[in-house]
């Protein structure tokens, strides 16, 4: 169990670093959504199913969607 959690935390931090490195903003947003998704799994492990649902639906799905809509209306690549 603890190994699974450690692996997920590692993956989450890698996702966050990737979100900071990617110059393609769409990729950065996907990486941030991955962070949210793993966080929601961690919430489930921490016995917070309500929060896990909210994070998965609001934090991962809707936030990524509005980010992508906004990027479509501005510019895709970081200068």
């Amino acid at each position, binding site marked *: 169990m603890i190994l699974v959690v450690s692996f997920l935390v590692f993956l989450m931090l890698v996702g966050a670093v990737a979100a*900071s490195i990617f110059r393609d903003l769409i990729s950065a947003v996907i990486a941030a959504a991955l962070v949210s998704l793993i966080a929601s799994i961690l919430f489930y492990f*921490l*016995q917070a199913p309500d929060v896990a649902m909210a994070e998965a639906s609001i*934090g991962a799905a809707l*936030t990524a969607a509005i980010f992508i809509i906004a990027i479509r209306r*501005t510019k895709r690549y970081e200068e």
Partner: protein
Amino acid sequence: MGFLNSYIYYIGAFGLILIGLYIILVKRNLIKVIVGLGILDTGVNLFLISVGYITKGTAPIFSRTGIDSEDMVDPVPQALVLTAIVIGVAVLALALSLAIRLYQHYGTLNLRKIREQKW
């Protein structure tokens, strides 16, 4: 192993908080900064939930009779985080709409180039 057992969630939460702050402080692109705000929010939420956790606890829901209420994790941080998630998405949405307008006015999202006014 004991170290991981007791600190892994805190490490994850504060890792996210520090990475989020780093993105906000260093990156130039406004959308990137907003992504950083989102990561910072996620980290704060993870920290709040970890504060309320009890080892080998169960979710605070009496879905069937005979659940031992001694082992239930603290419901208060979960309620706080539900609030914080919604507030976070509200701020992100407003920030993105401002970013769209900013791009229409300046044709760029680079915060270092947008310096009409002095700080």
